């Protein structure tokens, strides 16, 4: 079984996003960027499948600027076999990303694609679902656990009311939720080893995908700020304020 994991380079989750004064977007100059945390979970799952002998090959792919190579190297250092870098400086929307990923999945003959359930920058949460539809594959969204038996993949999903289990025919697509696993840290020897693993260089044009954006960003602004509140002395004061000042009890 070949496993493909798409990873995205995003603003590190510990860094607070700052809106540019000209309202054109979020300022990403000189800030720490990392692999989308949900994609680390996807990489971890793929590597575990390989360690268990279930996966025969693991491929990590990223679509983005030259620096996206670093994100691919992180995946390789965690244990993925090889990388594909589809280089573009454009801000691609999930639909274009999904179209490119479809072409990559087909070219690689992937049996399983594991994506993050959402990227923590744009929060579209749509790339995985779009890719599954374009491939006409079944999807297990927001996976809490997964296991393969024969040609079927059983996925326990996190849903609004709790957990739901579905059975998917392979090939299939899974999106990761936070509780699927705890990603490993790459060890120094593995980081060194990853430097020698191959990364294939591609462009969106190689796959014949039209990446023209469908959305125009008119502006990006700061959210409405909350006014600073007060500290209260004790529990009695808290009840009093909530009841008599805020009127919410």
């Amino acid at each position, binding site marked *: 079984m070949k496993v493909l994991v798409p990873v995205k380079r995003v603003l590190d989750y510990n860094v607070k*996003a700052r809106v540019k004064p000209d309202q054109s977007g*979020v300022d990403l100059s000189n800030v720490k960027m990392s692999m989308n945390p949900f994609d680390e979970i996807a990489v971890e799952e793929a590597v575990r499948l390989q360690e268990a002998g279930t996966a025969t090959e693991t491929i990590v792919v990223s679509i983005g600027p030259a620096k996206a190579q670093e994100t691919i190297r992180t995946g390789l250092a965690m244990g993925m076999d090889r990388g594909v870098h589809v280089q573009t400086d454009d801000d691609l929307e*999930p*639909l274009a990303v*999904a179209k490119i990923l479809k072409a990559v999945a087909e070219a690689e003959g992937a049996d399983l694609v594991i994506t993050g*359930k*959402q990227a*923590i920058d*744009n*929060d*579209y*949460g*749509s790339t*995985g*679902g*779009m*890719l*599954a*539809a374009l491939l006409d*594959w*079944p*999807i297990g969204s927001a996976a809490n656990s997964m296991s393969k038996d024969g040609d079927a993949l059983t996925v326990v999903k996190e*849903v*609004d*009311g*709790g*957990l*739901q*289990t*579905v*059975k*998917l*025919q392979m090939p*299939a697509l899974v999106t990761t*939720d*936070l*509780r699927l696993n705890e990603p490993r840290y790459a060890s120094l020897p593995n980081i060194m080893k990853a430097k020698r693993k191959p990364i294939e260089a591609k462009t969106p044009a190689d796959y014949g995908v039209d990446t023209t*954006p469908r*959305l125009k*960003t*008119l*502006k*990006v602004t*700061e*959210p409405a700020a909350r006014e600073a*509140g*007060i*500290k209260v002395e*004790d*529990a*009695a004061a*808290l*009840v*009093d*304020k*909530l*009841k008599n000042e*805020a009127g*919410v*009890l």
Partner: protein
Amino acid sequence: MAVLVIAEHDNASLKDATHKTVTAAAKMGGDIDVLVAGKGIKDVMAAAAKIDGVRAVLGVDHDSLERQLAEAMEVVVVGLMDGYDAVLSPDTTTHKNYMPRVAAKLDVQQISSVTGVESADTFVRPIYAGNAMATVQSTDAKKVVTVRTTAFAAAGEGGSASASDSAANIGDLKSEFVSEELTKSDRPELTAAKTVISGGRGMGSGENFKLLEGIADKLGAAMGASRAAVDAGFVPNDWQVGQTGKSVAPELYIAVGISGAIQHLAGMKDSKVIAAINKDEDAPIFSVADYGLVADLFKALPEFEAELEKAGV
């Protein structure tokens, strides 16, 4: 212009998220129809027909739709889109599961979790955990939109729309439902509750969440949690409030033993009133709290419950 709104329901009853999505749809202008896709949905259809501003209710009743699985929903919705310029659903997990599939099949860029509708093609949505708000205009012929329902008021129930059954050609699917393990609770649903009380890592154990229960009972509150509390196994996954969990905007949100990481704030900072109990006076949660109590929660919670009792709550 015609807009299709997809109902949120459990086959037995219609959920409030539907009414809120209708409000968002109304801001786009045009006729609004509601799709109820499920199994044994007569009552849900009747309830949907009462929503103000709805032209017609379409019901698709099919065995494969009992759990609204992704592939089946894709077939139903895509099949109806010839007659519509836009489709809107709540941004709950049920719809997040198949709306991207619908968008891809229609060759449309989905617009996820909108908190504002400016016009028929322009929407506001939070990005970067709500630290920025993007206003985006869609150039696609059809719009595929999921709605952050906490940002919209529920449409009223004085309507009398027509309701009719619609057929769907759902063939063999490559996925099947196996089982479900739903969290049982008599409390209000987290995203719809007027009051929410959440506990974080500071609670220390699942057992200690009992300290919140008595208060939740008195306040008729739903119970929530931070990711750390869920990851630690204190409480079930569906309690998680935040950027990657549920978004809530109740009248009152009480955060106990929660530090206030940006990912948590993303899911609750639109609450009307926020109260926080934390022993660390520098905890970031206090920067969004209207009322902050710096105290050990093990001491403060029993006192808070007793004071509520005294105040006749």
